[in-house]
């Protein structure tokens, strides 16, 4: 049995954390490494406001995200630039 011409329901309340984790999957190893590793280590400890900034950050296109996370461009939004700094600090050699 099949449902013809299916249109997905996109307005259901997603599980926020899982959804954000999927958004950490990007087109470059550099971003994957920074975002996913940070997410696993620190997401649970973020405040609600920091989480919101992190979510906003993830909406940036890959090239801009790379600029932010490589320290070439500082985001205008103070919350976002704070999260970027946290991500950069989380890298271990």
């Amino acid at each position, binding site marked *: 049995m099949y449902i013809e011409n299916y249109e997905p329901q996109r307005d259901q309340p997603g599980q926020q954390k899982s959804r954000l984790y999927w958004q950490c999957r990007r087109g470059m190893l550099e971003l994957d490494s920074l975002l996913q590793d940070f997410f696993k280590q620190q997401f649970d400890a973020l405040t609600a406001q920091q989480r919101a900034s992190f979510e906003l950050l993830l909406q940036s296109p*890959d090239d801009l995200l790379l600029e932010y996370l490589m320290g070439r461009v500082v985001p205008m939004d103070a919350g976002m630039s704070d999260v970027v700094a946290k991500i950069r600090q989380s890298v271990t050699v």
Partner: protein
Amino acid sequence: MAIAKRKFDSLVIGAGGGGLRAALQLSRAEATVAVVSKVFPTRSHTVAAQGGMNAALANVLPDNWHWHMYDTVKGSDYLGDQDAIEYMCRAASHCVIELEHSGVPFSRLDNGKIYQRPFGGQSQNFGGDQAARTCAAADRTGHAILHALYQQNIRAKTHFFDEYFAVDLLKDDEGYVLGALVLDIETGEPLIIEAKTTLLATGGVGQLFRTNTNARINTGDGMAMALRAGIPVQDMEFFQFHPTGIAGKGMLITEGVRGEGGYLINKDGERFMERYAPHARDLASRDIVSRAIAIEVREGRGCGPRGDHVLLKLDHLGADVIHKRLPGIRETAITFVHVDPVDTPIPVFPTAHYTMGGIPTNRFGQVVAPLGQLVEEPVPGLYAAGECACVSVHGANRLGGNSLLDIIVFGRAAGNHIIGYLQENHYHRPLHADSVDRGMQRLARWDQQGDGESVDNLRMELQREMENHCGVFRTAEVLQDGVVKIKAIEQRLQHARIKDHSKIFNTARIEAMELENMVDLALATVISAQARQESRGAHSRVDFPERDDVHWMKHTLFFKEGYKLDYKPVRTKPLSVDSFPPQKRVY
């Protein structure tokens, strides 16, 4: 359970440069096109390509497509198919200009023409002086191409299924491919996409190795889908290691650094590439530089407390050149190893970079397999393009800048061939219930409850074994050991379980299916490598150091069923020019 269903003329699985270029060709021809991508399209791995795209535009130095063809055949270590290579090199200039017209902002020379930089393996006049053939949009060529193609597709009304995971191909008893079963990652619901043609453009499988340059989404899903549909994968033993990845982390330091004058040194400060490739030195092709670095380390001339890497020196270029020409590299080094290359060299080691092998196709993008009497029969309704395909223009070794070219040229060619197919095949064939059931079983398998091995641990083990047993150096013993180890992982995977059985954005389930895909491809790679008793291009055997054209100038085909191997001849006859007979490959 009722499964949702959609119908299109054409299905494209993968929204990197290859998939988007094909989709654009189709949408512009007014076919209905569905593009499925597990991540948002502009997050596809094509975004990572920094260096550029080759085309003999001759804007900086004299050049022509025939020289480009020679370099590609030679670079492939004579395993590339010369008909496809001629086709690609001839189409290159046109494709670059087409991209420019689609909105790709290529960097310019002062005279207004497209800037071109020198890359490894490029020559003028069939092996003469260094050529400058790589067109770039600063160091974001892939990003620029991907965004331009995405925008053009939106304009052409391509239908995107973003964040859908393709599970399996649907096929009928006569062997026609009818579309695919996909999973809506957000809702966890399956969906059948029926189509008269299906194009696989799912990219490479760099995640097979622990140290690699690839995005973590590069798990070879399309290749594994083909394997499960009874189609072989070709030349999987040829995996390109990029010579300069950040040691221990994998991130790529582009060849452009050496193009601009950076060079490699060992712990004695020696510029060792002079010993391995006296003419081309640090710009020799990737396999040669990778092997040289590995030998330096093996023979005790590696740097650092563990002697496990060499150094890439660029401080002599001066801060100005580094800032102007290599803007991304400095930040990469500072961010990931806390080193500023303006005054300190970067620790580097070979890192898995590019999958030369893949789904066998002809130069029209049709998937071809030995189905009956012929070695190459098209699988009806199925196409492949881009890194997941093996057309084969890269043969045993890909030249830098030829992959963006490959995905654009053959994405476009596949689109054109599909248009012809659609003109002759007006109707959808009936959906095949057994095929749907098989795909659904694959999904259901991960609903099993209880204790079992963790997918994360198995993946890490797989990547480590592949690095240790199927990396830059290969011998019979090492590979045999690898085959045993990967087969054991395949067995253990049967007993793996995931803990999260939720529906919405269940990453665990996706990662489990990606691991299944990778295990099949790991077996294909290590078994193909074990069988090939020669060294050619990226496949380097310590116990068979020479290339053996008498016995091994042929393509490997690996089938999932019974781990069977088969071979087919290299297509040495180009379309219009004389063939380039195998010669010793010196740079």
